[in-house]
């Protein structure tokens, strides 16, 4: 409980969604990158979230007091991982990175980033970020209201 727990929770949400937004922006910027330092085209990145407290939440309605659910403390980023979806193949034998031999000769492997998907994700992330900021506003408003108790007497 206390005054600042809800603000910490919302702040964790804000930083998590900001990171996700950065990853999406990076994906969009690298939508045509066919050459990366580790070889091959750019692989789409995505973020994996997890709740900040790692306590197990039991399903049973009859629980001893020790195992009862506790209020969570927000979200954290587990890892930023690469998406293993197959690459897009575009026919362009004149491209310097075209495949030279084999069944896919003449094709260029383009990154597996779909701009439409990324844009949709960006809209959702924007709304989530806004909602978290609204939570902080509400917490502030609640605090200020409580400060007014007994003010005028």
């Amino acid at each position, binding site marked *: 409980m206390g005054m600042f727990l809800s603000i910490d929770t919302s702040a964790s949400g804000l930083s998590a969604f900001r990171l996700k937004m950065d990853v999406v922006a990076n994906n969009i910027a690298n939508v045509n990158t066919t050459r990366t330092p580790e070889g091959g085209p750019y692989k789409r990145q995505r973020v994996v979230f*997890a709740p900040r407290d790692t306590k197990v939440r039991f399903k049973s309605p009859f629980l001893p007091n020790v195992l009862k659910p506790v209020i969570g403390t927000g979200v954290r980023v587990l890892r930023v991982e690469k998406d293993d979806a197959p690459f897009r193949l575009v026919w362009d034998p004149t491209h310097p990175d075209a495949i030279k031999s084999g069944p896919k000769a003449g094709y260029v492997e383009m990154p597996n980033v779909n701009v439409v998907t990324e844009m949709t994700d960006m809209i959702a992330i924007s709304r989530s970020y806004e909602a978290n900021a609204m939570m902080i506003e509400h917490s502030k408003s609640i605090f200020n209201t409580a400060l007014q108790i007994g003010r005028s007497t």
Partner: protein
Amino acid sequence: MFIDSSLTKTQYLLEKGLDVCLIRQEVIADNIANVDTPHFKRMDVTFESQLARALESEKNPRFPVYLTNPKHIDFFKPLDYRTVEPKLQIEHDTNYRNDKNNVDIEKEIADSIKNTMRYRAMAQRVDDNFKMMHLALQG
């Protein structure tokens, strides 16, 4: 403060309501922060309905029961409203997305707005009650 007055009961209910609104604000903040977390289930706070039931049970029972033995269990036992505590419940069985996350962000935002309005109303009433008592002391 004043024993056996209706004002004491109101004061107690208001203070408990303020506490519960704070808990609810934290729970909703946690739900919204975890709106994109896979396998996360939203949490809820139940208090007002239990409190209403406890207050309802203090009124006269509608169906009086005649017990032939003092060890028999009565139909209506009045529940003391002072023992009602807020309960945290996790909604396990609903799904909203494919990754088993069931947080509906619009609902959470609406709940949070309602919660804030409730808190402000209750804090305002507490302040007014105190003003009233100060008024009674004047002169």
